[in-house]
């Protein structure tokens, strides 16, 4: 392929044909084009260091370095295009894959990720993130919500009510994300809706990350008394991130309406058919 893209009447998502990674998102209605590279990375869990013997555990997120390692720098891909759906299947490794999906009429890009069981055979706990890198000048700021009710501005290495001495470059900037996180430069906004509560941050300007899965080999000595380690071969987790690209002015109405559809999603019930008439009498 020279260009690998999926598109409908509202959105076009372009992929790097060499790496298979998402490269660009375009809002065709508003003629907005944003280079967005998305991939999976993992933070290796701290086992304690000279500054503190605190290890990363169920309660404590403490990576041992500030730069996460990519799960893989490229993805093996497969493209499915039909009248009703366009999908790019990305396989990063035996335990990490994703489907980037677009339905007709849809104004958001759907990323369905599948992560796990996280390998810990090297005795390192790992915390896996999905990261979106853009050239947006976000001025150290990003936004997370509290159950969709109140969106709070988060500023890197800063607390509004006291002078912060930041000692944890990554974990100190992580915040709860209940349903959405976004970054903006005042003109363009990139919003990611989650289907469950996750941790999220913007560790660098223009970057946005969400922790999708974690598996740890040590107890953090905060009272649980066991490491965050699933029994057996480990848990395999599947979830979805819905990505919206819009102008800063119009973004809120888009993500609020979409979030309603996610939270109050239709329920599907099947039946073999041929039932008998029923009434209360």
């Amino acid at each position, binding site marked *: 392929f020279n260009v690998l893209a999926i598109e409908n009447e509202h959105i076009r998502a372009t992929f790097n044909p060499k790496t298979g990674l998402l490269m660009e998102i375009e809002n065709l209605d508003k003629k907005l084009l944003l280079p967005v590279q998305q991939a999976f990375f993992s933070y290796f869990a701290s086992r304690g260091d000279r500054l503190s013997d605190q290890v990363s555990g169920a309660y404590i997120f403490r990576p041992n370095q500030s730069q996460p390692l990519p799960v893989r720098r490229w993805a093996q891909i497969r493209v499915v295009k039909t009248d*009703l759906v366009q999908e790019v299947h990305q*396989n990063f490794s035996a335990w990490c894959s994703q489907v980037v999906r677009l339905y007709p009429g849809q104004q958001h890009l759907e990323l369905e990720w599948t992560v796990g069981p996280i390998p810990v055979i090297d005795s390192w706990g790992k915390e896996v993130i999905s990261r979106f890198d853009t050239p947006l000048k976000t001025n150290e700021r990003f936004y997370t919500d509290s159950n969709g009710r109140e969106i709070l501005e988060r500023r890197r290495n800063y607390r509004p009510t006291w002078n912060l001495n930041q000692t944890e470059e990554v974990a100190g900037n992580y915040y709860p994300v209940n349903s959405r996180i976004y970054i903006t430069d005042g003109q363009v906004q990139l919003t990611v809706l989650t289907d469950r509560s996750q941790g999220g941050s913007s560790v660098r300007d223009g970057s946005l990350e969400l922790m999708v899965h974690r598996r740890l080999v040590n107890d953090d000595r905060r009272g649980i008394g066991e490491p965050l380690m699933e029994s057996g071969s480990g848990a395999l987790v*599947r979830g979805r991130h819905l990505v919206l690209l819009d102008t800063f002015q119009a973004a809120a109405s888009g993500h609020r309406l979409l979030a309603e559809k996610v939270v109050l999603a239709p*329920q599907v019930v099947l039946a*073999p*058919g041929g039932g008998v*008439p*029923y009434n209360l009498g």
Partner: protein
Amino acid sequence: SGDSAPLNEAMAVLQHHDAVTGTCKQHVADDYARQLAAGWEPCEVLLSNALARLSGSKEDFTFCRDLNISRCQLSQTSSSFQVTIYNPLGRKVDWMVRLPVSKGVFLVRDPQGRTVDNNVVILPSTDRQMDHSELLFSASVPALGFSTYSVTKMTNGKLQTRAPRRRPKKSS
């Protein structure tokens, strides 16, 4: 009889911070999962009763709990079945229904009996023994209501079995 109280109670227990954050011991996590599963079961009966009353037809309703991993016994093995989609939102939605099916050609009809465009997408799988075809069709569901679609598998362009007995069924 259906009952939503056990799920209510399980959800209340799961408001505890260690359930929300996943910081509980493994055996506690297992027990939370057990309580949720046990709570959901009588809710399925409750939903079946409600759907029977609202639709005026008593069906053997099946709740496919593994749809997120493309597994559903009924849709993968039956040559015809009904799909009821309930919309809890206060406005009409158009929703892409995805159901795991065995390979083939399908006829999908909406509540008014009109044919609906559908696709069968074959998904890549590491397990070559498993069939990973998914049937897709767009469903329109009214606000705070439901729509029932019928799906029939076809062979060589013909219906493989008789379509389920059609009853006048509109979106409600």
